[in-house]
């Protein structure tokens, strides 16, 4: 499986995902299936899948406390300790996790190897690598904002924070753009940031030889899916409009458990919805579970307090050891000869030898 095959496979898979609702709704008018049944099924898969997965992780214990210590530990009062990178208690762990989850702190450290050779002498340098961090953080935050903005379709009345978020996101009034209607309704910055960030995340997998080497179809597939999701969403907003009141009717019907699939919503909406359904149904079975996993990572969510708080391993079992008695039995004579203290006298050796 080389990278080329991986990309083609993932791309075709996403194309199929696009075609299914296109045919399903566009040609066969299966609105109930694509507007109600599949979304419910996908949501159920998503929630149940996540719960099962997380509980499955939880069923395995954390036998040892192995935090990565990225800063000075707690020792003497006169040595400045790093409370966040080497936490000794819950507070530090929480702050560390918050930094990790909210600012992608570990990724922020990222460096890029620069390897040179001058007259046979190697030189290794490290350049600060910020693009992955930047793309990652832009992508995740844009996705979050876009998701929350969609609450205007999920809730009635629409909560104030959603309106505020929309206003902030649409702050740049790019309305009345040179293309007719393209800027109307308001252009959201997160739309463009998301697409740019995901595009970069995809491109780097193709452009960097190391990334190309390690990437699997499972890496390209979600990227293509999210690109497709964003692309159809933007198309729907800026180009092939649909009747948003009907969209909301459908969406809110789902959330109120009185689903309807109103007539007259453009196929593009069903494509968008189906991609989303595939994405969330795929979620629990994929690497996307890092969303939940990051909170459970023992190298990050544990304090470095082993030396002063005992960690208990639930499956700790007794093991065979080489006891001092066995040791002394083997070396007693030498020890006595060398003047080393022994537990038993020289005759003890003879005794054991006799027994054997």
């Amino acid at each position, binding site marked *: 499986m080389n990278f080329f095959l991986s990309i083609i496979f993932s791309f075709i898979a996403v194309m199929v995902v696009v075609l299914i609702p296109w045919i399903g709704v566009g040609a066969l008018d299966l609105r109930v299936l694509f507007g109600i049944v599949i979304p419910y099924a996908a949501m159920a898969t998503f929630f149940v899948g996540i719960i099962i997965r997380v509980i499955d992780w939880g069923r395995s214990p954390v036998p040892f406390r192995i935090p990565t210590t990225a800063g000075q530990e707690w020792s003497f009062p006169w040595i400045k300790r790093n409370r966040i990178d080497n936490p000794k208690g819950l507070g530090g762990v929480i702050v560390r996790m918050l930094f990790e989850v909210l600012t992608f702190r570990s990724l922020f450290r990222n460096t890029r190897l620069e390897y040179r050779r001058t007259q046979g002498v190697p030189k290794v340098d490290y350049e600060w690598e910020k693009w992955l961090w930047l793309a990652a953080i832009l992508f995740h935050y844009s996705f979050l904002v876009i998701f929350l903005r969609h609450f205007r379709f999920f809730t009635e009345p629409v909560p104030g924070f959603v309106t505020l978020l929309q206003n902030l996101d649409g702050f740049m009034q790019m309305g009345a753009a040179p293309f007719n*209607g393209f800027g109307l309704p308001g252009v959201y910055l997160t739309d463009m940031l998301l697409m740019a960030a995901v595009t970069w995340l995809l491109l780097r997998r193709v452009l960097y030889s190391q990334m190309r080497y390690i990437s699997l179809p499972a890496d390209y597939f979600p990227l293509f899916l999210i690109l497709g999701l964003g692309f159809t969403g933007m198309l729907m907003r800026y180009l092939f409009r649909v009747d948003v009141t009907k969209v909301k009717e459908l969406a809110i019907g789902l*959330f109120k458990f009185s689903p309807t699939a109103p007539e007259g919503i453009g196929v593009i909406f069903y494509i968008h919805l189906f991609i989303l359904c595939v994405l969330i149904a795929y979620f629990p079975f994929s690497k996307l579970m890092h969303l939940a996993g990051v909170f459970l990572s023992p190298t990050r969510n544990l304090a470095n307090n082993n030396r002063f708080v005992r960690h208990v391993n639930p499956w700790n079992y007794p093991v065979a050891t080489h006891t001092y008695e066995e040791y002394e039995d083997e070396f007693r004579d030498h020890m006595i000869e060398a003047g080393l203290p022994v537990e038993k006298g020289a005759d003890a050796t003879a005794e054991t030898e006799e027994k054997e």
Partner: protein
Amino acid sequence: MYDGGKIIIGLIIGLGLLLSPFFYNAGKAAKAPDPELTQKAKEAKVCVAPTTYMRESHFTLLDEWRHTVVRDGERYYTSDDGKKYYKGLQTTCLDCHSNYSKFCELCHNYVDVDPYCWDCHILPEEKK
């Protein structure tokens, strides 16, 4: 399960946020809006474009109008059926749809859209 308490609390918080639309909407009557036509609109029967198009893309049309009027000086619009209209949000659209609060606003509120048209353009005075 190990650390079950923490994990379950985490799950509840995390999934609770994702499930919040279910809780938020539960027990609420979230009726889709039903915009009301004025007498004048009813009599006119047709708008400048078919209803579906107007529902989906009236702002595109308005933007098109705005642009051609201001920049190209083209003041008149011919509809599908050959009728000519003076391009004007206030003078044409709102003349017919003079019931902003029962027409435009219903859907705008429903899908939380707050167009900045009304920063400058004047809403019709409605008889209460």
